[in-house]
C-alpha cells in the first residue's frame, strides 16, 4: 500500500483538509469587508449557490453587509423577492446601489414566490437575488439550490436566526446579530473548519445619519436635541 502524500490536498483541486478553507470554490464576489472575506472559502460571496443569511430580525444591517457585493454586481438586475418591509428606494440610493437595476417582486402566495425565485435563477439574467421566505420546506431549498447551480447569480436567502439549527443544503450560512457600530457574524456553516468565535464587522455607512457629533448629545432629552441645531442651519 502506498503511503499517502504529505500534502493530501495536492491530489485534486477539489480536495481540502478539514482544517483548511476550500480552495477550488467556483466564482465569488468580494464582500468588501476584509475580515469577512478572509473567513469565506474563495474569498467572497460564492456565486451560483445557495447562501443563507440568518438574521436576528430584519433591519439590523444585512443590506449594508451586502452593499459592496451588490454594488459590484449592479451591471445586472438585483431582484428583491418578498422583502419584509417596503424597500426605501432613497435608502438604496444612499448605499450606492443604482436604482435602475432594482426590482421588487411581491407574491400573493408562497408557492408563487418560490416559483418566481426559481425562474429568476433559471434565466440567470439577474446579478443578485435576495429572497426572504419563512417558513420554507427543505425540498424547496434543495430545489432552489439546484436551480442556482445552473446560473452565476448571487443567491441569498434571508431567514430568521432561529433556523440556524435546522439542516440546509446551503454551502454557506452566516448568522448576523446587531452590535455597537455594525454587526456580529457567526459562521454557521462553510466549506472549511468550524469557527466558534464570532466576527465583528463595522458597517459603512453608519445608521447614525446626521451630524458627526450627534453622539455626544445622545443623553440629552429629545427636545433639547431638536433645539440644538444651530440657528444658521434652521434659517
Amino acid at each position: 500500500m502506498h503511503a499517502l502524500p504529505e500534502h493530501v490536498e495536492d491530489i485534486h483541486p477539489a480536495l481540502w483538509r478539514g482544517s483548511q478553507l476550500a480552495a477550488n470554490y467556483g466564482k465569488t464576489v468580494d464582500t468588501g469587508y476584509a475580515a469577512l472575506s478572509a473567513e469565506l472559502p474563495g474569498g467572497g460571496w460564492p456565486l451560483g449557490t445557495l447562501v443563507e443569511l440568518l438574521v436576528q430580525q430584519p433591519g439590523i444591517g444585512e443590506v449594508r453587509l451586502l452593499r459592496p457585493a451588490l454594488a459590484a454586481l449592479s451591471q445586472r438586475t438585483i431582484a428583491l423577492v418578498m422583502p419584509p418591509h417596503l424597500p426605501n428606494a432613497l435608502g438604496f440610493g444612499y448605499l450606492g446601489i443604482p436604482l435602475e437595476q432594482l426590482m421588487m417582486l411581491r407574491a400573493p402566495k408562497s408557492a408563487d414566490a418560490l416559483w418566481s425565485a426559481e425562474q429568476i435563477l433559471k434565466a440567470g439574467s439577474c446579478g443578485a437575488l435576495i429572497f426572504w421566505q419563512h417558513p420554507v420546506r427543505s425540498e424547496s431549498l434543495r430545489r432552489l439550490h439546484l436551480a442556482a447551480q445552473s446560473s452565476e447569480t448571487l443567491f441569498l436567502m434571508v431567514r430568521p436566526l432561529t433556523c440556524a439549527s435546522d439542516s440546509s443544503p446551503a454551502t454557506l450560512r452566516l448568522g448576523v446579530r446587531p452590535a455597537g457600530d455594525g454587526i456580529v457574524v457567526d459562521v454557521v456553516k462553510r466549506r472549511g473548519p468550524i469557527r466558534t468565535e464570532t466576527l465583528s464587522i463595522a458597517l459603512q455607512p453608519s445608521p447614525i445619519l446626521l451630524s458627526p457629533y450627534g453622539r455626544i448629545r445622545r443623553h440629552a432629552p429629545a427636545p433639547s436635541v431638536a433645539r440644538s441645531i444651530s440657528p444658521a442651519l434652521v434659517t
Partner: protein
Amino acid sequence: MHLPRLSLEVFRPRWSPRPEHGCVVLEKDKVFIADPTAREAGVRVGMKRGGVLTLSPHTVMYERDPLRENLMQREVAFALMRFSPMVALCEEATLVMDVTASLRLFGGIVRVCHYIREVVDAIGVTARMSTAPTGQGAWLLAKQRGTGGAGGAQRVLKMTSLERALGRLPFLAAPEVRAFSEWFTGLGCKTLSDIRRLPRAGLKRRCGVALLDTLDRAYGLAPELYEWLTVPPTFSARVELPDRVEHADAILFCARRLIVQLCGWLGAQQLALTHASIALEHERGRAAIAPTVIDLALAEPTWREDHLVRLLKERLGRTELAAAVIAVRLSVTQAQPAQPSTEALFPEPGGSVDDHNRLLELLVARLGVDNVLRPAPRADHRPEHANRWVPMHDARRAEAPPADLPRPTWLLEKPLPLMMKNDRPFYSSPLKLVSTGERIEGGWFDGASASRDYFVAQASDQSCYWIFRERPSSADADDTRWFLHGLFG
C-alpha cells in the same frame, strides 16, 4: 406528408381524452374510419350504421365533414410554414413541402423531420412523413407506407434509391392507375416498376397522358408545379374543443395548437408578435355570454413558441371562467418585422437582454402587473411619498432624488405608534436617541400634511431604528407621540 387519420382527428385530436367506447366516422352511412377501441369491439371499415350499433351501442358516431378536414389540413400547412414558405395542399389528405432551402438552417434532414413531428403532434394529428428528391415521389411514398405495402425507406435522398423505392410500391398507390387496376392485374403487373416496363406509346393511348405524367414527375423526368399556399395578411384562427371545458388550464392543449399555427404564420412572414388576443367562447346558456378575452401584450416582440406557451399557461392559470368553454380563437392584433438576435462572440454570463425581458414577462404573467415593481422615487420630502414603486413597464420616470440624503433601507408600510415608558419611546426595549433631529414638514398642498422630527434611535441590543415624533399641531397640546418608520437594513 400524409395524414391518414385526418377524418377522425378533426373530431377527436390526439391529445383529447379517448371516449370510453371508441368513436367512428361514417360516410354515407358506412364506417369510413374507426379508432382502435372501436376496432377492438369488432367495428370494421365499410360496416353499416346498424352494424356498429349492434356491436357496440355506446360508440360515438360522427358524420364525415370534408370542410373541416380541409380546414385542418390548412392548419397543419400553416404550422409547417415555419420550416419553409413552400407548402402545398395535395389531394387525399396530403401535404407537400419543399425544405431544400431550409436544411442548413435547421441542421439537416433528420432534425427537420424531428421538428416537423413535434409541430404535428402539437396540432394533434397522426402523420406519416417521407422525403424524396421529387415531390410526387415523396407523395407516393408517404401515401403507401402505412397501408402495409412495400414499407420502404422513410427518407430517400438520392435519385437512384428513389427509383428503387418507387419500383417496389404496389401500383395502386398512384391515383391515376386505380381506374385501370383490373386491366393491369390481368397483365400481371403488381408494382410501379412493372407498369414502367410497359411500352409508353401503348400506355399513353390506353390510359391517357395523366398517368404517364404522374410517373414521370415521381421519377424526376418531368418538372413539377405546385400551387404553394399563400400567407394571409392577418392571422385569426379558431378551434372548437372536442368537449366542453370547465377549467382554464385544460384549454392550454388546444391553445398550443393555435400557437403552433401562429408561429408558422409569423415565421413565413418574418414577423414578430407584439400583441395578440385570445377569446374563449362560452357555451350558450339562456343568454349568450360574451367571450372571455385574454390580451397578450409582449414588451419584447417574439416568435418563439415555447415562450408564448409559457406566458399563456401562466395567464390561463389566473383566469376564472364564467362558463364552460367550447371554442378558442386566437387573433394577432399587432406584429412587427422580426429582428434577428445579435449574437456576441463572447456571450455574457447573464444571458442577453431578450432573455431578461422574457423573464420579466413571465413573472408579470404569473404574479400580476402590480407585483413586479421598480423604484421611481419622487421629489418629495415626506419619505412615504418619495419612495414610489411602479410596475416594471410603467412609463413614469424616476425624479432624481438628492444623492447624499441619508435614509434607512426599509420603510414600514404604516408608521407604528410607539409606547412610552419613563418618557422614552419603547420598542421591545427603551430607545435612546443617537442623532440630531431632521425636521420634515410638507404636504400642506395635497391634504396629507406631515410635520415631523426624525431621529435615529438605538435599542438596548444595539439595533438602530428610524423614529419620528409628530409635532403637536397646536401649541397647548403637549402629548408628543412617537412612531417607528424605518429600519436600517
